């Protein structure tokens, strides 16, 4: 175990001060209690209907994401450092997008190769020369963070399109307060329940500048068969806004309306959980029924805000990711506060050569992949899998990046066989409004439940934990 940073013990006999009470509780709590609480949590999640769909899995159309009842802790000072890094990063991401779709200074300065942008699948030529309302492109960002020691935070990837998981952050907290109120009360946990209020305020501030009166905000969902449908309905409920599908919308004279029982009602802000490709059949995929015809026209006319903006996906591209330290320095004149994981860009011949020689040690990711689909974890892959990836890489080197197999930190996790350390990451949610950046202290901790596994994605057998940021480091 010693090669990994364990967030509770850090390899020592005594727990870190932050985890003292958790360690005591784990020592004294009978194993039956943990088992009972774990089962209770599952029953509650099922009853509430917090489920997600796994694509390509007919057997389990609605599955639960396993919930681990042992919380993951962060100290106040750790959080303060992380928060500052997140604010910096998201500012830079928005400035980068404004620049790319505008004057393209960063390309002119020779810092980013031109073809990386213009040949990128996430680049939207329709947005070239356009400005997003208030220059905000990514209103809701999920930045995936990992730790390998008790010092630094590393960004594993940026999610600037439609990051999901925030409902789990909120529901996990509810679950902990319900299942382990005593343990919760022993810790001064900073609250996260104001996230929906923050989101609403951010969306409201992002309304088109000439929007008359109180903006009408809606959430656009692909519908109840989408894997994140629970979250869409959860957020609509917490925000008190309509949850619309494409078929509820109609566009006339570049103005978006929703069909209501009282006729049509004008819509000003759309928090869309539908990918760019499906937003508007007139502009993007013509076969899409998930968006609304004319939506892009309304957006470009400045009559509706789309959050996140079309084209924002460019910034979370895994190839662009590798340039983030340069991007931050270019726009903000600062060093990046959050580190990037060392990355080989397979588009560069030297890097490709290295990657091909070290496939069994590296993690290889598709530049445009997400959700843990289409990636190779070298140390856990079979010879055939490695050969398949070698061929993929040779065919399309531009489509891949590679990273070292990270020694992700571990946290104590309650499993049917007892408590054991498992690898975790953290996705804090960063909100950008016209009036500033908002982050609630915490985020979604994802945990790889399989022993030794480094893949935390829910579609690949990952679970979640509540994340406690403590008001003081050792109460």
């Amino acid at each position, binding site marked *: 175990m010693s090669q990994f940073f364990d967030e509770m013990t850090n390899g020592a006999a005594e727990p870190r001060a932050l985890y003292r009470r958790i360690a005591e509780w784990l020592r004294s709590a009978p194993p039956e209690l943990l088992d009972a609480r774990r089962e209770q949590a599952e029953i509650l999640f*099922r*009853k*509430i*209907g917090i489920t997600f769909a796994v694509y390509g899995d007919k057997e389990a159309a609605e599955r639960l994401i396993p919930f681990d009842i042992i919380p993951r802790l962060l100290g106040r000072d750790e959080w303060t450092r992380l928060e500052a890094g997140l604010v910096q990063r998201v500012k830079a991401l928005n400035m980068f997008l404004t620049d790319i779709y505008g004057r393209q200074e960063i390309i002119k300065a020779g810092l980013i190769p031109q073809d990386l942008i213009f040949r990128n699948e996430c680049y939207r030529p329709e947005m070239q020369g356009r400005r997003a309302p208030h220059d905000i492109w990514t209103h809701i960002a999920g930045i995936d963070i990992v730790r390998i020691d008790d010092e630094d935070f590393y960004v594993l990837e940026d999610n600037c399109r439609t990051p999901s998981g925030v409902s789990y952050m909120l529901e996990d907290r509810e679950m902990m307060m319900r299942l382990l109120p005593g343990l919760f009360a022993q810790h001064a946990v900073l609250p996260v329940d104001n996230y929906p209020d923050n989101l609403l305020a951010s969306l409201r501030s992002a309304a088109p500048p000439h929007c008359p009166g109180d903006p009408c905000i809606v959430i656009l969902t692909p*519908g*109840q068969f989408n894997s994140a*449908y*629970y979250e869409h*309905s*959860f957020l*609509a*409920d917490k925000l008190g806004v*309509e*949850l*619309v*599908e494409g*078929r*509820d919308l109609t566009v006339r004279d570049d103005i978006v309306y*929703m*069909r*209501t*029982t*009282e006729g049509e009602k004008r819509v000003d802000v759309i928090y869309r959980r539908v990918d760019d490709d499906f937003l508007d059949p007139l502009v993007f995929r013509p076969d899409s029924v998930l968006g609304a015809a004319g939506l892009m026209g309304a957006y470009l006319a400045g009559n509706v805000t789309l959050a996140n903006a079309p084209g924002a996906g460019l910034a979370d591209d895994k190839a662009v990711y590798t340039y983030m330290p340069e991007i931050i320095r270019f726009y903000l004149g600062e060093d990046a506060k959050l580190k990037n994981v060392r990355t080989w860009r397979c588009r560069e011949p030297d890097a490709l050569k290295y990657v091909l020689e070290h496939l069994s040690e590296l993690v290889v990711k598709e530049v445009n992949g997400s959700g843990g689909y289409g990636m190779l974890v070298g140390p856990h892959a079979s010879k055939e899998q490695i050969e398949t990836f070698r061929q993929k890489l040779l065919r399309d080197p531009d489509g891949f990046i590679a990273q070292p197999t990270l020694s992700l930190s571990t946290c104590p996790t309650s499993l049917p066989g007892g408590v054991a350390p498992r690898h975790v990451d953290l996705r804090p949610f960063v909100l950008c409004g016209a009036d500033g950046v908002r982050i609630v202290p915490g985020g979604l901790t994802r945990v790889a439940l399989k022993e030794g596994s480094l893949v935390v994605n829910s579609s690949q057998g990952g679970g979640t934990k509540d994340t406690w940021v403590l008001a003081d480091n050792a109460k």
Partner: protein
Amino acid sequence: MLARTADNIYWVSRYLERADFLARLIEASSRISALPTAYAAKQDEWTSVLIASGADETFPDHFEVANEANVTAYLAFDARNPSSIRNCIQFARTNARAVRTAVTVEMWEHINSAWLKLKNFESQHPEPTAIDREALNGFLDFVKETSSLYDGHGYRTMLRNDVYFFARLGVSLERADNTARVLDVKYQLLLPENETVGGSVDYFQWSTILRSVSALTAYHWVYRESIKPWNVADLLILRPEMPRSLLSCYGEVVRWLDAIGNQYGRHGAAQRQARAIKRKLEGASIKEIFQSGLHEFVDGFITETNGLASAIAEQYLLG
């Protein structure tokens, strides 16, 4: 409110009300078919159950004999029957899930739990025609409880706005339709001449009709005499205090449609049609209804109710 949301919420109510009705119909019919043959119906009980539930056209595609085991299996558990109880619960849950934001947490968790229990029941009883009476009774109680609790949660937790009005409208309209269907199938039993013909044998038929709309006890409180067929018809059609009578249901239909119209500041064809049907019921007497033909009356009522449902969809639900 989104037109689609109104549509979903209205149908959740209709499906759950229908599930409740089917459960009561099956219960009442099992009672009568458990009687010795001397008391048995002139009309085949289980065929009439199929007609009353609207499943008589598709049933022969799947079964040869309309006996208790087959009809019960088809009405309660068959996924191939679009109006089976299990499908009503499943559709209600699908509709509720599509508008999770419109129902309260209590309502959603209740309907979701009911759906989970249904799936559990089905995995324990993979062969619907082999389900014994005890298990069936347990299931029917569960269904009635599901509908009642959904209603109750709504009554206790919902905001009194258009969402609530559409939910109530769905219940009232479905209930009116169900009562009318029972009357439509059993009308010949209620004709006055049956009194001399039937005697004690028909007593069980009449009480079955009352049971299927849970009105047996109510009958005694209202009339304080033994069961007379014209009283049964009077109770189910014209009595305003009987919650499943056609008049009472239309009192509700008009009430909720008016509430919707008032909130939106605009009344339309749906409100006008509903009020016209209610006025007709208010002006009717049971004597006149029998004179002009009970069957014709009920038939006309069902047609008008279908017309009203279309007007509601046109005015509010299709968007």
